[in-house]
């Protein structure tokens, strides 16, 4: 893949004012990649500051619950700042420093990338502003406070959908205005070239770690690696090292929201069409005229009508598969990890859990699946308790219950080894994919 294209996807559709800067960014990245001191700096920061490599955990209770393939969790939730996002911001923060930019700006949906950017700005002594949709500021309030504590200015975005899409628009507008002093620290494998390539290079360490450790422990590659997909950075980080391992299925799970038969979802690769958004050609949720649709997901981080161009290419070549999990399925996955494993996952990451359980049953006990647990769920606790109460009473979504009313597995011991009828019922509704 050269000149920023992945097949027909990617490219650089931005105002002229940014093209010279994007060239400079690419040059700075190429130079850094060839520079051993940059690599050493990254390694040290990742290890001592970021807590890498993150653990690979065999989720025995989830595995027993599924009754099939072994399910491993890649514990990105244990990395500093609570998600995989730090890998990318460490790299771009150091690049910004090398380019003499003293100000970082970023968009954020769930706040995970905003928190990571605020963190690196504090560490490197840079000014930082984060744009976050007003609606997302509300539902991820904890992360707003975290950013502010580290000295970042959080600007709520009140235009358009008031979520991630418009946060990106607003960050782009800031960048167009302040490009000479400011680096746009883009948080996913989206945007104009060279961002999808740079972000991928900084997050691909996830899959590299998984591959190395699994070979050591199991003596073989996994049958499938899975990750949630919004813009697609944690999935690309997981997939990239495995692209040439043709026996390994790469499975991305998008946000199915209220269902793909509604317009209330964010499943861009499953249900979108080709278009140009935020500087790149990819799949987009849009109308026949090219006006971008508002989207919905219970998770702010997946609530986005675009997706990284390399994912579009992996989809079209058939190398990766993409499916969708609904809000209800994400909540189900959230609850499974909480109750079976004692891990509170981010709602984003929770989207991959129910599809992983289903796949585990398909593959049978000889299979191995690795799920990227891209973030932890402290930030979601308020929202989840709120939503569970809303959907609990008899509204037909019988597989979602508030924990105090109906624990996933009332008799703890049996729950870990056998399916309750309720569980079987819920998983039968879980096969929604495109």
């Amino acid at each position, binding site marked *: 893949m050269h000149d920023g294209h992945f097949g027909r996807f990617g490219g650089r559709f931005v105002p002229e004012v940014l093209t010279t800067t994007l060239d400079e960014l690419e040059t700075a990245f190429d130079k850094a990649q060839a520079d051993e001191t940059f690599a050493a700096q990254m390694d040290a920061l990742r290890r001592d500051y970021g807590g890498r490599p993150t653990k690979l955990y065999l989720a025995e209770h989830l595995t027993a619950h599924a009754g099939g393939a072994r399910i491993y969790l890649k514990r990105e939730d244990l990395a500093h700042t609570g998600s995989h996002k730090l890998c990318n911001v460490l790299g771009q923060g150091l690049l910004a420093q090398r380019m003499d930019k003293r100000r970082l700006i970023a968009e954020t949906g769930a706040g995970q990338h905003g928190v990571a950017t605020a963190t690196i700005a504090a560490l490197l002594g840079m000014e930082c502003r984060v744009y976050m949709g007003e609606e997302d500021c509300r539902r991820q309030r904890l992360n707003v406070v975290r950013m502010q504590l580290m000295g970042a200015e959080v600007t709520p975005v009140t235009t*358009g959908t008031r979520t991630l899409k418009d946060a990106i628009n607003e960050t782009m507008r800031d960048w167009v*205005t302040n490009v*000479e002093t400011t680096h746009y620290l883009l948080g996913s494998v989206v945007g104009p070239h060279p961002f999808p390539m740079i972000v991928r290079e900084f997050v691909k360490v996830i899959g590299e770690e998984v591959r190395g450790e699994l070979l050591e422990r199991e003596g073989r590659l996994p049958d499938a690696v899975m990750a949630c997909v919004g813009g697609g950075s944690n999935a690309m980080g997981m997939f990239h090292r495995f692209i040439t391992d043709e026996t390994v299925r790469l499975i991305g799970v998008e946000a199915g929201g209220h269902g793909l038969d509604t317009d209330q979802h964010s499943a861009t690769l499953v249900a979108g069409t080709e278009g140009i958004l935020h500087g790149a050609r990819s799949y987009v949720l849009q109308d026949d005229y*090219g006006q971008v649709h508002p989207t919905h997901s219970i998770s702010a981080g997946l609530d986005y009508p675009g997706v990284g161009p390399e994912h579009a290419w992996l989809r079209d070549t058939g190398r990766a598969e993409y499916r969708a999990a609904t809000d209800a399925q994400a909540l189900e996955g959230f609850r499974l990890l909480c109750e079976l494993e004692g891990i509170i996952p981010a709602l984003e990451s929770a989207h991959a859990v129910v599809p992983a359980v289903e796949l585990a049953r398909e593959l049978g006990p000889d299979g191995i699946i690795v799920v990227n647990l891209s973030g932890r769920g402290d930030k979601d606790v308020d929202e989840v308790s709120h939503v569970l109460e809303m959907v609990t009473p008899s509204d037909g979504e019988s597989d979602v219950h508030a924990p105090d009313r109906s624990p996933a597995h009332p008799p703890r011991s049996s729950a870990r080894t056998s399916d309750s009828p309720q569980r079987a019922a819920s998983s039968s509704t879980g096969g929604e994919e495109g």
Partner: protein
Amino acid sequence: MSEAIREANGEGRAALVVYLPAGFPDMDTSRACLEAAAEAGADLLEVGFPYSDPLMDGPVIQQANQVAMDAGYTPHDDIEMCAQLDANLDIPSLVMTYYNICWHYRAPDRLAGFARAAADAGLSGAIVPDLPVAESAPWLRVAADVGLASVFLAASTSDDAHLASAADASTGFVYATSTLGVTGTRESLSQRAEPLVSRLRAVTDRPVCVGIGVSTADHAAAVAGFADGVIVGSAAVRAAADGGPVAVKRLVAALAQGCRRGYRAPASSESAR
């Protein structure tokens, strides 16, 4: 389109380019506002086709776009309005919109379909601010086929090679952005505009118009001192919002005076003509 600019220059004034979005506050009023701009002395009209994610636009134009989209107008309605406009006016118009709108028009023809529809509606050219020269080959081909001029943006942050390629690809005029940033009114004119125009003059003989942040008659007069044309957008949209065609007419008349008052023919190109 470049003829219209040269003609204005020949009459001792900078050409005045006025931007207004189609469908704001409704389709008929937007056409009336564009016609009022023409009557009051605009030399070129720039018709915005609203897009959901206009990342080069500031709040004034964003809000106007939103009003038009909320009213349910589509790019097909916008094209139709341009056709009516063309029937009523004798100055050239160009469309300004984002690449995703062009690319989706009349799928599967897409870009070619958009170019043909624009030409059929009497439009003379197109400005697509998120289409840089490096990505423009497919568009330039279909635009040239139907005789549509293309206008590319040039910015002070661009190196000389980018400036030269933007100027070469611009078959109408070169759009020099006066300041870094998105569209919007500004109190004072940026100091960056004049040096940028000088740099462009060194690499092109094409007309150079200056826009973004040019809001008042005094700004227009200042820009007319070094550029071939003056582009005013957000100030016109604000006038349309506040007082409809009457207010647009008043503003454009004042801007046109500024374009005349401040005009100085560039020494080198004067002799070339």
